[in-house]
């Protein structure tokens, strides 16, 4: 029992990181932009989020405020993600370059920038960049009161997580409401399905593509920051972050572009990713565990294409640029 509970809590911790990456990418892909640069965006989010919190603590000294540090870390990561996606949007939407190539280039660019910022901080600060232990505690603190956490089983499964998990769920629910219930969500879906139809209906394609991609990039970047500030213990750790962005891209497919699916999907993927640490079966190398999420994604793809459901399909114009005069 305790093994399962620890597995679930650990899965949620890693799943939170994935959830941000996935939610951001869902928003982006809903506009028809396939941004493969999530990996790079999450690196940048991690590095800039850490930098934001670190330099804030350095400046504030003893007067440092925990909540403010969290807000600064989120804002810094979000801004970094927005900047990276703005580059992507400019190249693909305005200049109409190939989305796959641009996304891959952004991946490489973003991991490079993330590494650079992480290393720069290390070198300029003389060896070791970490927040003070107090502040570290703030980032990985449980938000719910102790009596809730102490409820057997349910307590640790539902209430023992950091603020970032509950924030991610809020983002997922809000995104669901936005897409399903509001006019602008409907317009965004329309843009991703058929830009030419939306254009004829008088919807500003460029605006929707830019906004969805830039805000989506910002949300994805928070995921990188959450990894560095929780799992990695507020230290720049590029190894743990590598591959997370790609997993988020796969998870978007797994979730069938639905934000609510991202909640359980990312926890499930999180569980598969950390299973090798908790449930070790002899003679099976850890790499096998690590490819599990991708295998599951492939199976989901096969199943959905076999069921041939018209509702569970990627946005119809995903990956295609729109150019009005081309007919």
């Amino acid at each position: 029992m305790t093994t399962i509970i620890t597995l679930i809590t650990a899965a949620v911790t890693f799943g939170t990181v994935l959830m941000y990456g996935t939610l951001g990418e869902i928003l982006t892909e809903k506009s028809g932009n396939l941004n493969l640069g999530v990996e790079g965006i999450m690196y940048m989010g991690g590095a800039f989020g850490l930098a934001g919190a670190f330099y804030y603590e350095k400046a504030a000294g003893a007067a440092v405020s925990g909540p403010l540090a969290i807000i600064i870390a989120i804002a810094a990561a979000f801004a970094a993600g927005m900047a990276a996606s703005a580059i992507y949007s400019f190249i693909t939407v305005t200049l109409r370059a190939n989305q796959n190539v641009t996304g891959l280039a952004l991946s490489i660019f973003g991991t490079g920038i993330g590494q650079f910022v992480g290393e720069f901080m290390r070198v300029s600060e003389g060896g070791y960049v970490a927040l003070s232990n107090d502040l570290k505690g703030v980032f990985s603190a449980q938000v719910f009161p102790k009596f809730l956490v102490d409820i057997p089983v349910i307590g640790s499964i539902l209430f023992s997580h950091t603020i970032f998990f509950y924030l991610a769920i809020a983002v997922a629910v809000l995104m669901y409401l936005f897409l399903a219930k509001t006019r602008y969500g409907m317009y965004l879906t329309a843009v991703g399905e058929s830009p030419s139809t939306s254009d004829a209906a008088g919807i500003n394609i460029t605006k929707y593509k830019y906004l969805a991609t830039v805000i989506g990039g910002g949300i994805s970047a928070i995921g990188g920051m959450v990894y560095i500030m929780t799992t990695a213990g507020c230290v720049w750790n590029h190894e743990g972050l590598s591959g997370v962005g790609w997993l988020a891209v796969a998870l978007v497919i797994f979730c069938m572009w639905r934000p609510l699916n991202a909640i359980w999907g990312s926890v499930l993927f999180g569980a598969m990713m950390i299973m090798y640490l908790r449930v070790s079966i002899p003679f099976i190398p850890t790499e096998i565990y690590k490819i599990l999420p991708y295998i599951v994604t492939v199976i989901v793809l096969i199943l959905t294409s076999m069921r041939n459901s018209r509702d569970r399909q990627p946005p119809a114009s995903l990956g295609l640029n729109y150019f009005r005069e081309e007919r």
Partner: protein
Amino acid sequence: MLLEHNCAIEMRGITKRFGQVVANDSIDMRINRGEILALLGENGSGKTTLMNMLSGIYQPDEGEIYKDGERIFIRSPREAYGYGIGMIHQHYKLIEVFTAAQNIVLGLDDEKMDLRRTNEKVMEICSRYGFEVDPSRKVYDMSVSQKQTIEIIKVLYRGADILVLDEPTAVLTPQETQKLFKVLLNMKADGKAIVIITHKLHEVMEVSDKVAVLRKGKYIGTVNTSETDPQALTDMMVGHAVTLNIERPRYPEPKRKLVVENLTCVDNEGVRKLDRVSFEANTGEILGVAGISGSGQKELLEAITGLYPVKEGSIRFVRDDGSEAELVGMTPRRIRETGVGMAFVPEDRLGMGLVGSMGMTGNMMLRSWRNGRGAFLRKKEPEDLANGIWKELDVVTPSITYPVRRLSGGNVQKVLVGREIAGNPQVLMTAYAVRGLDINTSYTIYNLLTEQKMKGVAVLYVGEDLDVLIELADRILVLCGGQVAGCVDARSVTKEEIGLMMTQFNAKGAE
């Protein structure tokens, strides 16, 4: 002045050019309320272009548009809606995963989003004009005619009182067409101005009040439907024959080269694209293929080259010694390996014919890459060939390695035709070989084809310009709805006769 009162839209001196091509040449036209106007013309006569200027997709280069006597400028589809003009395009603009109601309100910012009220309003429009539609149904579950209905409702919902329908019956079954006509008559009774773009004469006669005819971008005239007949309309549509002075020598002794018998092809949706087509093509002869676009021309050529699956029938190539080779069921590569010399100049030059990002040499090599030695390419011969075509056909290009995509349409066609001819084919097939080319290049192509013919090649020329077909070809095969409407001697046939064969057959088929 009763006429003035009825007039919803007046277009004066509308001219639209695309590069050198004049799509609309100072057209004057009126659209009246409570009337169905049929806009009639051959393919490429500028019908859709003219109406696109009304719906805000294009802006006229010259001329003025008046609505109710007031001059208006329509810069976008949205502005067109503002003026009460709605166009239903041939390709529906609908979001497949949305419901009918969602599609209808898409882009209407100023209205509160309330799908229940939308549904009510949609139902009201439906009952008023006799539509049958379920607003909460998803578009992907709908038939083509239901999708069209959504498009019409979309336009009406936005308050349009001037409706333009671009070939609305092209995809409908006869029953659905009747339903549509009933709705159109209801809308007419409601005082709306309706324009239908079409080239189907019997529909024009059936539903319209007035017919406006365009020919090659020029406005020919408007007549009352009740005072005209199909023959008179065909004459207006195709016009009097224009002399082009294309040289047409006779080849001494034509022999059978290609025999097509009962060829039937069915597309993915089960539609018969070709229906028991039979004909013979002879050496030293240009066989023109005429027909309204989409009558099976493309499928015919592709079936002969082995690209389109054949359901039934036979295509036989007659060798010089009189023996015959069956081509049905062979891949293009097998056909070439059996020693059947066929060349194909497809309609889609840069898609099917050439690789746009490669130079002339590279494109020449597409025909000869298998001649290389081991893994290495032999570039010498293609280079010589490219240089030869460059000089002989006056291709305007900086070098033979310059990407052909960046050449003008005429030069692209010269490269393609040059390459196809270089293989000394015995059968040469061309689809719309002069589409989009200027006069001089067109004549270059005509001369090349005639030259081939005099060498004893059997030439198949699919064309849309009847004047050219009559002067260039020796015989003309007329296709209509995938069937052979007739095969006539080009030297004695008149343009009107061909025009009638192209359109009348359709009428029979639909009844």
